């Protein structure tokens, strides 16, 4: 499961979210996906533990 899929699993309301907007930015520089920026006004950035708990 990708990082994006884990985030959608945690926050289903983000399934239609426009990730081009730059409010939430996921990146991959060649060594795996990571959260580069999270400035969503209402949803908290998932913790490492929350993401790891999702299978």
């Amino acid at each position: 499961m990708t990082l994006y899929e884990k985030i959608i699993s945690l926050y289903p309301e983000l399934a239609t979210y426009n990730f081009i907007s730059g409010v939430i930015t996921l990146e991959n520089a060649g060594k795996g996906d990571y959260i580069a920026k999270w400035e969503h006004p209402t949803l908290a950035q998932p913790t490492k533990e929350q993401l790891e708990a999702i299978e």
Partner: protein
Amino acid sequence: MALINTTTTGVLGTTVYGDGQGSLAVQKDGVTQGIYGNIPAFSVYLGTLQNVTTNTFTKVLLNIEEFDTNNNYDNATNYRFTPTVAGYYQINGNITLNATLINGNSLAVIYKNGSRYKDGNLQSASSGGALFYSVVSTLVYFNGTTDYVELWGLVNGTGSPSFGVNTGTQSYLNGYLVKAT
């Protein structure tokens, strides 16, 4: 590098001899006005299909050099252009995504020093589609020491996309020095 440095107190008609090697820099009062001869230029492309996670900005691992006149592109570790001559460079990039996407978009982006710098055109398709193209072209200032650029791409929608190759025609980055500083 040979050097011509004119000053307001210089002598008109003076013949200047350089060392005969490298580029020719012309300065006015010690400030570079232009560099002539071996203008730094590079062109690189993706040689291996690269899988992409949707909704995730992904660095394009451009690993094949067509030319790199000043050895400023790293095609093995960080996949970035770090020019050693300060100035303004024209930078052009293109990504092609092989995918059958539903409600998909593709976006090419120039990253400067690790951050999103300039976006290209956004190509969209409401249903299906085999190839998604996006072009980005911009002028970038580099300090000649630490500044660098990379080509990144984003694809969203539903599907399993990858950056295309097709012998260097689909995902590439190139650039050249326009004006040294």
